[in-house]
């Protein structure tokens, strides 16, 4: 194997040496005239298309960049809405019986609602009561103004079913809209309500 490598090196070395010992080439005497003849046949007002191309390419590039900027700007402006979604909860109770019913209303005037979530936090434990996805079929890419502008629905809280104990608890309602704010997450509104859960004593 080693001897084969050594022989290959020797051949390679000899071939490179032979290659580098090439003599100069003498071009035929008519060679130069032929080149000039070919060039003369090409000469004329359209002989240098590249030069012309350089000038025409600049406005084209600027136009293409401006078109891209307009499209991107339109997409951003159309999807960055300016108002937070809103939430109302009725009735406004401070003390919560083990069974309670509310009426929840939420809405967004620009892009529309994406998601409504209701949770109860008690002793640092978060319990999900409701999670409602309101995204249109295309999600945030589905076009502007197609989202749900307003929702209202009853919200029933059954402390026993949710595993809540008597005492302090926080009801948290979070609503997100379809805008591109907050890194495409949308504008977020949160309503927090401190409550005391108690069980109705039998008389």
């Amino acid at each position, binding site marked *: 194997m080693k*001897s*084969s490598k050594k*022989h*290959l090196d*020797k*051949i*390679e*070395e*000899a*071939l*490179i*040496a*032979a*290659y*580098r*010992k*090439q003599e*100069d*080439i003498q*071009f*035929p005497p008519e*060679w*130069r005239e*032929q*080149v*000039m003849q*070919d*060039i*003369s046949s*090409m*000469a004329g007002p359209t*002989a*240098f*298309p*590249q*030069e*012309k*191309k*350089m000038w025409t390419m600049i406005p084209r590039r600027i136009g293409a960049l401006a078109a891209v900027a307009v499209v991107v700007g339109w997409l951003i402006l159309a999807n960055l809405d300016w108002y937070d979604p809103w939430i109302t909860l009725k009735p406004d109770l401070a003390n919560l019986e083990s069974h309670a019913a509310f009426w929840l209303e939420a809405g967004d005037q620009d892009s529309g609602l994406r998601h409504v979530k209701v949770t109860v936090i008690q002793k640092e434990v978060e319990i999900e009561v409701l999670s409602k996805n309101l995204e249109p079929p295309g999600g945030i890419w589905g076009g502007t103004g197609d989202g749900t502008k307003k929702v209202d629905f009853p919200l029933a809280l059954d402390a026993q079913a949710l595993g809540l104990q008597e005492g302090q608890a926080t009801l948290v309602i979070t609503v997100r809209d379809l805008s591109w704010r907050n890194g495409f997450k949308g504008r977020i509104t949160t309503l927090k309500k401190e409550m005391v859960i108690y069980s109705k004593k039998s008389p």
Partner: protein
Amino acid sequence: MWPVFFKWGHNLIFPPVEMNFTDNIPDDALVIRNILRGNINSFEILMDRYQDHVSRIVRNHVPRGEAPEVAHDTFVRAYQSLGGFKGTGPFKHWLAKIAIRCCHDFWRGYYQNQENLAGPLPDDCRDWVDHLLSDQSPEQDAQRVEARDLLQWALGQLSAAERTVLTLTHLNEYSAAEAAALLDWSVIRIKVQSHRARKKLRKILAEILPQGIA
């Protein structure tokens, strides 16, 4: 009457540059500007200056018989592309790029023709290998035509790209960066192609080693 008027008008808008030959020879930029303004005879100045440079490049890349034709193509292509010469680097380097690409195109066209595929190794070349491996001085042997024939035969088994890269990096000792600039390829592509081509060349040469050695 009209052509004379147009020529006069053209010269009024784009006056041919007066070249000062008494001072010294005009620089390339001035000559090129003059050619672009329609004075094609100025191209002869560029040919005078760079004919040897181009002939050296093509001589190293294509068979000797084809060198005048490839050099001819190089100058014609240079003239056609002259409007695209930005002048950010020397004209000589720009012309070298065109020459290398013409050589590469020559090999691409050559390999597309099935008749040009490498045949069996001539007996003379096989004898030359035997002679070299028995203690002959490589300096003497390197002079021999058979060595060049063998090299051409072995290079003929490579692809056009491998051949061009190997000729630049290995035979002409261009750095990978220089070869990349000449071919408008990435340095990585040059390194990979060069490594593969050399490995392939050695494999081809290994196949012709005499029985006892291989």
